[in-house]
């Protein structure tokens, strides 16, 4: 599969009479966007805000972040299984409004939602302080069940992103990147002297509002399968997650997975990136065993010599990570794991819930329990009082002056396990 990503660099976003891109400025018709976003009888109101880098603005609670894109050629459309039919994506050309993002907020769905600060210390922890954010505040009608509420806001975000992305259809991109993975035997033969590397992409699927979707299917119901990396880049995987904000993958991160991008960067130079296996993180032992067995088998089947495994979330998914590692290593295939840590506020506790001697190459995205104080902001979009209840916050997190003291767990993307974050470490 060969996918062209045409990046249209967005330098500013403004509200205007027409939704369009002109000379790098994205204009958004507020009324039209609100109408498209709110096109669901279960939605009571939609409000549209802009939040730009450097502004004294806080968005809370953040449910999802989505990159506006449009499919200009090739099969399928944006968010197959949700916005478009389930046709296979991942080939042809997709235009991206690079630098812009749709952020969904509103009354809290589950207690594990996040915070984005556009300036101040919190901004250094979230990648979405650097994007030009079009925030849609979606509030549902009364009496909606929590799971339905989640679906309502999830779909509203996709409609908003698809509507805005459409503005890039006839714009000449500033740059076009080409990504290609060939059918397996052909791909394996292309670089016979380079090590064959695959990617095991773990998707959060614990249920109870911790869900990820693949072509519209709830990923807890899949058995692990192969997917072209370009399908992932092209919107086949989306987030329905209210899991801890720091280490869930918002839809934007699935669309821009740094693991996939970096593997492509080295493809044909240092490695032969032969494919991607998606797997889940379910809540029964039989599911965990079955999925890790299947994952190890698929990795072996495609002839990988080494794999990168990324986790999403923490806690019992650590067991899935460890099972994947152990079972793949037992087949003589090398693994590198990417995770984050819950090592306590002082960093002295055990970082993961499970461990294995085979896990001897691990990359950490940071300790989610680190405590931070976020200063008050001039503008708060959403509902600041949820700071006391979201995961990483506690009663009293929100102070009278509007500041918030909580673990960095509350910040969207702070310890993202695909590396879509800014935390780094330096040796002394």
């Amino acid at each position, binding site marked *: 599969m060969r996918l062209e990503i045409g990046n249209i660099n967005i330098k500013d976003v403004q509200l205007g009479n027409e939704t369009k891109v002109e000379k790098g400025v994205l204009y958004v018709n507020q009324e039209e966007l609100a109408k498209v976003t709110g096109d669901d009888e279960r939605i009571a109101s939609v409000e549209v805000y802009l939040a730009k880098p450097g502004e004294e603005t806080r968005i809370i609670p953040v449910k999802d972040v989505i990159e506006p894109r449009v499919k200009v050629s090739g099969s399928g459309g944006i968010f197959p299984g949700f916005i478009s039919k389930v046709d296979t994506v991942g080939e042809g050309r997709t235009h991206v409004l690079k630098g812009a993002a749709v952020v969904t907020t509103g009354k809290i769905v589950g207690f594990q939602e996040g915070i984005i600060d556009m300036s101040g210390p919190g901004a250094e922890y979230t990648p979405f302080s650097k994007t030009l954010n079009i925030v849609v505040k979606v509030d549902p009608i009364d009496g909606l069940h929590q799971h339905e509420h989640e679906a309502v806001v999830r779909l509203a975000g996709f409609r908003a992103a698809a509507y805005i992305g459409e503005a890039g259809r006839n714009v000449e991109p500033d740059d076009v990147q080409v990504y290609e993975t060939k059918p397996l035997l052909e791909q394996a033969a292309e670089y016979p002297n380079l090590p064959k590397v695959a990617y095991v992409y773990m998707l959060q699927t*614990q*249920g*109870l509002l911790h869900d990820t979707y693949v072509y519209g299917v709830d990923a807890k119901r899949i058995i692990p399968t192969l997917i072209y990396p370009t399908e992932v880049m092209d919107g086949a995987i989306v987030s329905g997650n209210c899991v801890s904000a720091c280490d869930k993958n918002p839809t934007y991160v699935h669309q821009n997975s740094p693991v996939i991008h970096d593997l492509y960067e080295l493809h044909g130079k240092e490695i032969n990136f032969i494919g991607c296996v998606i797997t889940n993180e379910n*809540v*029964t*032992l039989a599911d*965990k065993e079955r999925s890790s067995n299947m994952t190890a088998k698929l990795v072996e089947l495609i002839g990988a010599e080494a794999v990168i495994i990324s986790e999403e979330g923490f806690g*019992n998914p*650590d*067991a899935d990570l*460890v*099972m994947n590692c152990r079972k793949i290593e037992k087949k003589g295939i090398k693994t590198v794991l990417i995770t984050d840590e819950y090592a306590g506020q002082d960093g002295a506790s055990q970082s993961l*819930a*499970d*461990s*294995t001697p085979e896990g001897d190459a691990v990359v950490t995205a940071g300790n989610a329990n680190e405590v931070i104080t976020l200063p008050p902001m001039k503008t708060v979009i959403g509902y600041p009082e949820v700071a006391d209840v979201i995961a990483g916050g506690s009663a009293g997190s929100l102070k009278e002056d509007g500041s918030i003291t909580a673990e960095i767990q509350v910040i969207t993307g702070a310890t993202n396990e695909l590396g879509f974050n800014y935390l780094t470490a330096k040796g002394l």
Partner: protein
Amino acid sequence: MVKEIESTGLPIVHMCTVVPISLTVGANRIVPTVAIPHPLGNPALSQEDEKELRRKLVRKALMALETEVDGQTVFDQ
């Protein structure tokens, strides 16, 4: 907690869903349970069947408590 209590000489049964974690942390008597969100129940069952399920799990745990073990043992029969 399992290890701390056991170190005082009291036998312990760890009832848990993710058995491999229990094995990693060093529990000696392990009884597998239903699912992480509902280890000792199953909302998909009728109330009567769920009660029976819970009773069976508790009985199994009591049986495990009475059983002499030589190293880590998973009671998964």
